[in-house]
């Protein structure tokens, strides 16, 4: 098994102590940082698919994401300023009036693993704060809004519409337990995902289309 293949396998298995060592070994063998990063992104794609299909559960996804982030730490100094490695910045938050953060955090982790730079606004985020964050951050390509309550669906709609009014071409993805693909379309979002694995796939699809 090549070093890069080992990196892929250990990210998928969530070996956060081994991955940085293997990443360093792959670099020492002459692999390019971008190649190693892509291997880890691919690996997290597999993790996301397995989560979406029910083959693995949240802990397995969490430890895989942690393992990847440990590997990325090794690569970061070598890739500083290399914009080609990033899919852009993604602003994420749970909408106003809603304090649920678990699903949003998982989605954030998986979108980051797909190659985005994340700006997490946390929970209970007013619509205007999303817009301000787009203004304040460079290279924003995507905004992800989460809503877990039937009572905060109006806030989700307001967030999407406020963002779209300010930045009509910016892609917006929505999710959360009561959200459906139909609802996403109705409120003007560009994409919907039912779980964290699918969110990463959809996020990538939206900004690379």
């Amino acid at each position: 098994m090549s070093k890069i293949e080992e990196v892929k396998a250990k990210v998928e298995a969530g070996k956060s102590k081994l991955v940085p060592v293997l990443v360093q070994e792959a670099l020492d063998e002459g692999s390019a940082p971008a190649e190693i990063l892509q291997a880890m992104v691919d690996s997290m794609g597999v993790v996301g698919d397995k989560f979406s299909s029910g083959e693995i559960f949240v802990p397995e996804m969490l430890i895989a994401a942690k393992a990847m982030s440990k590997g990325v730490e090794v690569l970061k100094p070598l890739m500083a300023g290399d914009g080609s490695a990033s899919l852009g910045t993604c602003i994420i938050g749970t909408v106003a009036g809603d304090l649920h953060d678990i699903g949003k955090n998982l989605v954030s982790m998986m979108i980051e693993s797909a190659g985005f730079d994340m700006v997490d606004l946390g929970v209970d985020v007013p619509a205007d704060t999303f817009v301000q964050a787009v203004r304040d951050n460079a290279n924003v390509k995507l905004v992800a809004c989460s809503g877990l309550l039937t009572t905060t669906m109006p806030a989700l709609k307001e967030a999407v519409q406020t963002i779209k009014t300010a930045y009509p071409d910016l892609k917006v993805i929505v999710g959360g337990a009561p959200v459906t693909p139909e609802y996403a379309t109705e409120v003007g979002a560009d994409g919907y995902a039912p779980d964290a694995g699918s969110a990463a796939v959809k996020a990538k699809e939206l900004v690379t289309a």
Partner: protein
Amino acid sequence: MLTKRQNLLETIKGGNPDRFVKQYEFMNLIMEAPIGAMCGPGQTIKNGWGITFTWPEGQLGGFPIHDDAHKVLKDITDWRSQVKAPAVESSDEAWAAAVAHANAVDRNEEFVTAFVAPGIFEMTHHLMSMEDALMALYEEPEAMHDLIDYLVEYELAYAEEMVSRLHPDCIFHHDDWGSQRSSFVSPEMFEEFFVPAYKKIYGFYKDNGVELIVHHSDSYAANLVPAMIEMGIDIWQGVMTTNNVPELIKKYGGQISFMGDIDSGVIDFPGWTPEIVFEKTKEACERCGKLYFIPGASHGLNFGCFPGVYESNDEAIDKMSALMF
């Protein structure tokens, strides 16, 4: 006409109920027991474990806060110095209202039901956040086993005090084990960490006169049903439609019963109508049938989030009883 208690037992034992059990009607919930501080609407509180909860006005529930300033358990390997269980309340005064309530219940008609929340899994993530708790199951399994043992010991100490005073017939125990789409952990991990804990807890209750264990998890957890049976759960309350309840009844009816199959989110929302409630109730009753099934919203207590929904659901169940019995 059977009493509420008799009708429930006929339903879950595969006998001859004379109507659908109507949501929580068989449980007379003793909510006065000194189980610890609970967060109400518009409040922010710190409970006996040091966990801070906040419930924003106008929202549907409270949430533990897990920023650096509020997280109780920051390092699982150091849990012994960071987690301190509160004292179990043991004064007569503290229990007086609960005892008076329990004594006033007609036990031929209803089950005197003690309410217990949060559960063991919930306690782990209330103390340290969901992400930390779930990763610790992989990264520090020995420490997690020890922490869970500590939480179980506390619950057993509370249970001993509570059982000696209330002599409950039924325990209604919360512990959410999944999202609406999947269980939080795999059945294997659940078997390793949580089944032994609940075998001790529910075993204690059953050994001390409790006839019925009703466990609340308003989630997907179909993959955990064999574990629920092993733990001694009689009724899984909160079962959501994503679980394919008719299939669960077919597979496990007689070993466990299912209460729910009406997702709260589709009937209990600002724009609810009696017609929507009836439609969803009818669907649930018709697909699940009369045995091993109790129709009701997945919500974990005997009220709705929006005024009138719970009562409307009761009326819909009455109509379905008239149509199907």
